[in-house]
């Protein structure tokens, strides 16, 4: 029994709103403090995406602790916030479900769940980031020449650049943009022995070949004419198992956000309706809602 109460107290402590207040306040201070190192030493942080968080910690992270400490503190606070959010929202959700019959309609009850949808979505997002930074594989510095292939070992596949089309600016309004590239399309063929895929790669238009995604980082030549340069593309190849989690987290968080706004709207309309009703109320005037009982 004693152990049960102890557990209950621990559960209550982790779900307390004052803990949220302290954690978020510390996170705000920590993030503001992180602005300076990130602005003046971006080269220390840029490799996180390429090498993953653990390898980054062992190299840049621990070796430049003066500049990276804020990030370690942030990760710790994020972990605390995740526990706090989970416990707090689970407690409140339990209470809401218990009192669901007191809501005027089922719909309003569902809308009332919106903050909890956002909280759980945020946790799914955090999980996605965690998986991504601990388990994602990145192939950096892969350069493809037209007609040439590169092979990947994990997952085993071959990527061939069939051709590269570049559009150059031809308008007259911007003389300094003349002959500069404004669009690039790389025609790729990917083969893993069982599957074959032909796709067009462009800026912000990656090619997916499960489980990898290929992103265009750079290409050449970016200007037409002048010094003749070979055509090539520089790609980032990612194998990120966390993307499904953080993208679905974002989607559900957005849904929760819309539901929250909807709930607020209904509340505002109800308040206005009550205020109007009170304004129209005149004691002794029969025929108005309250007196006639309509």
């Amino acid at each position, binding site marked *: 029994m004693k152990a049960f109460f102890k557990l209950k107290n621990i559960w209550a402590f982790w779900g307390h*709103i*004052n803990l*949220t*207040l302290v954690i*978020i*306040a510390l*996170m*705000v201070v920590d*993030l*503001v403090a*992180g*602005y*300076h190192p*990130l*602005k003046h030493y*971006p080269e220390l*942080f*840029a490799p*996180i*995406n390429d090498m993953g968080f653990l390898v980054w910690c062992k190299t840049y992270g621990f070796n430049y602790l003066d500049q990276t400490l804020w990030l370690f503190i942030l990760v710790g606070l994020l972990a605390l916030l995740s526990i706090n959010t989970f416990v707090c929202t689970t407690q409140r959700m339990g209470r809401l479900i218990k009192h669901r019959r007191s809501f005027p309609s089922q719909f309003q009850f569902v809308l009332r769940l919106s903050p909890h949808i956002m909280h759980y979505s945020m946790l799914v997002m955090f999980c996605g*980031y965690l998986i*991504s930074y601990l388990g994602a594989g*990145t192939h950096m510095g892969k350069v493809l020449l037209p007609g040439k292939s590169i092979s990947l070992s994990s997952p085993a596949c071959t990527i061939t650049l069939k051709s590269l089309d570049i559009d150059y*600016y031809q*308008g007259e*309004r*911007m003389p300094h*943009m003349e002959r*500069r*590239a*404004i*669009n*690039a399309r790389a025609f790729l063929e990917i083969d893993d022995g069982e599957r074959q895929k032909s796709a067009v790669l*462009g*800026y*912000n*238009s*990656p090619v997916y070949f499960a489980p990898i*995604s290929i*992103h265009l*980082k750079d290409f050449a030549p970016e200007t037409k004419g002048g010094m003749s340069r070979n055509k090539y593309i520089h790609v*980032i*190849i*990612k194998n*990120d198992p966390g*993307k499904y989690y*953080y*993208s679905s987290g*974002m989607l559900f*968080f*957005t849904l929760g*956000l819309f539901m*929250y*706004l909807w709930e*607020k709207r209904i509340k505002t309309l109800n308040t206005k309706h009550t205020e109007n009703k009170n304004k129209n109320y005149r004691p002794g005037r029969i025929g108005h809602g309250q007196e006639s009982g309509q």
Partner: protein
Amino acid sequence: MHLSFMAAAFCYIISLALMIGSRRRASAFFMGLGCSLNLLSLGVRYYGFFPMLPLYQGAYLIPCLVGACCIKPILASSGHPIHPLMVSSLALTALFFPNDYYLPVLQFKTPFAHAFVFFGVVGKAMFFMAGTWAFLALIRSARQSRERSWQTSETGDETESIVKSQLVASISTSENLKKMGNAVILGFFFWTLSIFSGAVWSYLGWGSPVVWDDPLMTTTMAVWLYFTLFLHLHLIPTLYKPFPRAMFALVGSALVFVGTLMPELGMLRWPGGLS
């Protein structure tokens, strides 16, 4: 294009002067004119430099959005010179600290890139509006308490007319707080959409939802967390009172200015040198 923005800033200042002189309609007219000129300057800027895209346009668009939100209160009784003052200050900041930085359209070839910029600017504008309402709530509640202490000391007790005037003042304060709360909710909504759009853009372009070489990422997240906390204040009874809430929103809009708007500003330059 810079001239149209200068004209817009001039209209905002006229609107402020008219508001101080209690000429609400004329003030609203100049505010509307200023917003139109401001929008025109942005349109011209985008058109004139395409296929280069002007980054850091937030400082130019924010006065327009805040100004558009201020027209209704200026016309109604809830308006105060603080509204055009806020818009004028923001416009003058953009005018004296211009940051005309242009990037090729190549890396913006997705609607998410534009959504990131636009939603972020709307979010900032809403947080500034929240700051304005918070400031109004604070000065009205301060005036209310000052009047109350003065009247009580004069008459010795609270007569019916004093109670009535205090009731009107407290209603006005609560109206301001309500508007402040709504502005924060809208700001949080757009700020979140901006962060998510930025994450999707970053993923499409670089294969990761976080770009680790942009220091603004930290202050953007700090602002988001700060207003997350604001939206949780109703769960903390000691802080869910008019004064702490208004102070919280006011500090929040200062954080938005210092953390996310100031880094996007350029060096001090005299506006005449722009045209």
